[in-house]
């Protein structure tokens, strides 16, 4: 098992700096995901780790070993590609054996090891088929077995599921997760699908423009996004302008633009200022009996029934629109134009300074 450490990585294409200065440490045996919008440099970084992209600056380590200058074939990596990259002229078995043969292992060992990994991915039945007779999902399994069979130090996967249909994608990501746990291999996984990232990862690095915005567990990314970008990239959220104030007792509160006041003693230690707050749609709570707690009134503008949940677009009294999600129930009968009362689950909101770059809850 191997820890991956990247210090001050820099990547330049022509005169475009794609990755300016990137630092990441990936714990041994963990599944680490690079997540971010298209073009943010995920593939670029992965290919730097693999050795297919040159490195313009910084140091890459597998464990103690600096790998900057070793050939891809010498890095002992397993790689799984978006387009499977199965060798079409070789059978399934020969594909898996290919890497083992490069290692000049004993013939018996090669066969045995290939079979072991084909069993692991449940493809032993198809061992002697040519790849063209396999479905996309099956090909990707073979690619996984091929990558794992050589006992690599790290496993690298670039959007391995994005060519598969939705249902298969969910099954396969489960399979990848299980196999990764079983083998215990340090894995770097690239995706732009945040749900997939949440489902599969131990740790996620959210990237934007070649810069890591936040590294954390799926849970911490969702509940404590480090900045506005992460908050809106992971799940959905409403960003509202508000004012941080202290009342007569010196307790901090947030005043929304519609006049609603959220007590927020967690920020007592900060000065009064303009802020941006992130409230996820499910953190608005509908209150039937408006007298019991502080609420504000909204008008329903649109609703979409999604089975488990119903999503509403509602208008605040200051005309701003926000999204609200509520678990569906059989007898709910809210229609457009209805007025309802909402309050906010204050535990779960996040407050940012006006530029959206700093989560004020983290400021000491």
């Amino acid at each position, binding site marked *: 098992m191997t820890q991956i450490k990247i210090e001050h990585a820099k990547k330049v294409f022509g005169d475009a700096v794609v990755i300016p200065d990137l630092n990441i440490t990936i714990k041994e045996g963990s599944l680490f995901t690079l997540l971010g919008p298209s073009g943010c440099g995920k593939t670029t970084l992965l290919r730097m780790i693999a050795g297919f992209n040159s490195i313009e600056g910084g140091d890459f380590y597998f464990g103690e070993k600096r790998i900057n200058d070793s050939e891809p074939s*010498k890095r002992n990596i397993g790689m799984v590609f978006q387009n499977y990259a199965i*060798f079409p*002229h070789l059978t399934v078995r020969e594909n898996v054996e*290919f890497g083992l043969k490069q290692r000049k292992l004993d013939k018996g060992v090669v066969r045995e090891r290939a079979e072991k990994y084909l069993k692991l991915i449940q493809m032993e039945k198809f061992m002697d088929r040519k790849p063209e007779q396999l479905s996309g999902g099956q090909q990707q399994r073979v690619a996984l077995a*091929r990558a794992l069979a*050589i006992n690599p130090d790290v496993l690298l996967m670039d959007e391995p599921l994005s060519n598969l249909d939705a249902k298969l994608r969910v099954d396969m990501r489960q399979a990848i997760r299980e196999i990764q746990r079983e083998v215990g291999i340090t894995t770097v996984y690239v995706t732009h699908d945040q749900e997939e990232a949440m489902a599969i990862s131990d740790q996620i690095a959210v990237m934007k423009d070649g810069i890591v915005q936040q590294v954390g567990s799926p849970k911490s990314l969702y509940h404590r996004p480090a900045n506005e970008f992460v908050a809106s990239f992971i799940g959905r959220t409403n960003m509202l302008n508000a004012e941080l104030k202290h009342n007569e007792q010196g307790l901090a509160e947030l005043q929304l633009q519609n006049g609603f006041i959220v007590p927020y003693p967690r920020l007592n230690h900060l000065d009064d200022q303009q802020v941006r707050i992130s409230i996820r749609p499910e953190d608005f709570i509908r209150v039937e009996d408006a007298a019991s707690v502080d609420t504000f009134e909204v008008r329903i503008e649109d609703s979409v029934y999604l089975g488990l949940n119903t999503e509403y677009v509602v208008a605040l009294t200051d005309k701003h629109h926000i999204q609200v999600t509520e678990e569906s129930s059989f007898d709910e009968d809210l229609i457009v134009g209805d007025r309802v009362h909402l309050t906010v689950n204050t535990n779960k909101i996040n407050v940012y300074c006006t530029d959206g770059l700093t989560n004020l809850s983290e400021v000491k």
Partner: protein
Amino acid sequence: MKQTKNTRRFRLDIWGIAGLVILVCYLLFLVYPVGNILKQSFYTSELGFSLEQFSKFFSMSYYSNTLFNSFKVSITATIFALIIGILLAYLFAMFDFKGKKFLRILIIIASMSAPFIGAYSWILLLGRSGVITSFLSNILGVQMPDIYGFSGIVLVFTLQLFPLIFLYVNGAFKSIDQSILEAAEGMGVTGISRFFKVVLPLLMPTVLAGALLVFMRAFSDFGTPMLIGEGYRTFPVLIYTEFISEVGGDAAFASALAVIAIVIALSIFMLQQIVSLRFAFSMNALHPVRTKKVSGIKKVLVYLASYGIVLTAVLPQLYLVYTSFQNTSGMVFQSGYSLNSYRAAFSRMGNSIFNTLRIPFFAIILVVLFAVFISYLAVRRRNAVTSTIDSLSMIPYIVPGTVLGIAYLTSYNTGIGGTGMLSITGTTMILVISFAVRRLPYTIRSSVASLHQISPSIEEAAQSLGSSKLNTFFKITVPMMMPGIIAGAILSWITMISELSTSILLYTVNTRTVTVAIYTEVIRGNYGIAAALSTILMIFTVLSLLLFMKVSGKDEISL
């Protein structure tokens, strides 16, 4: 996946060395001889640098008329080939009739034979004492028009070259979607008017590409006008005769003619580039055009036209097969049948049959080897050296075979620069190399295409599995390219075994090929042997075609 297309710096690794070796080969066997021709045309030891040769050509109509003649026959033949080729492709695409596969194979065979063999056979059929001519005048009292000269050349070129147009346009029809035709029909445009308003414009890029190819072939062929042209001299005939009559003497004039030929070919090539850019658009048919059943008089016409055209095209070949079994004495066919012509062919020309297998075989090995490396270097390892190779390898496209033959003869006679090094004139090697150089552009193009089909991530996958770059090339890239390359190589092979214009200049008694032998036997008037050899050549061609179809799994040939 983004392609990393950025030009890299040259490095002296295994690929760098391969690149340099290839570059040196091209310098020795292409740049040097062609450069030598250029030099000879402008520079003589007596006159120094001068345009004397060129002004001689353009000031004397005896010479410059040949250029005019060449344009005239080539343009006329191209127009007829277009009409017939497009008509046939249209019939194939639109209508349902029996025997299409069979006809298609016949068409391919017709296109693969050497044009001069067609010319020779047409003389037997329609010449002054041809069988059809005699039949018509003796039985019906009808006088056939003269087949020699302009009309004969056009006839032979048209029948020889319309198959190319057919094959091109037939392919293009496959990319027209049925819905386009139906849409036109919905707007009330049908039949002939639909063909001219909708179908033909869609086929235009292909038609133009085919037309230019046909024109080039017609323009550079010399065997046909040599045999059937009589007094009608075309430009390649002039080049050949001037050169042959001047061997050992002053080759400057022939060189100047060669330079003119290159300039013309180059202009046409550039015209084609411009035109194909102008007309380029991409089509993709979800539902290719469906064929329709026809009945009644229309059905008769469809059968008559398609079978008529194709059978006329293969008639000369078939007639030669027939005459090869006839008893002959010199130019006269006598009654009775025997294998005498074959006996004579084997005893007197046996080595040419062997040569026809041997020389192209070596050439094909060179072609495949170079094509694999050059395409890989050009696609995956672009740098200054490989780009130079890439451009150099395309030069033979525009150098007519006769010109390359002359260049080789004059350049290697006394070795490179007269040093005695590589004085390969008269050897098997010079033929092998000239064949290889001429066919390489085609094979490179098809291997570049098959390399583009291979995603770079497949090679990266191999590397990530611990395979070195060289091992990946041989174990992954080459095997994946191979099916496409082998198929292309077989096609090249077929064109090599019927090659005349270079080999007629470079052969010796020991390196004579069947095509050369047929030509010389026809000239000498040994028609029996020529027919037998033509039949043997045709058998080779058909067998190679069958092999091609088996290897590529297709019964079609795209050019």
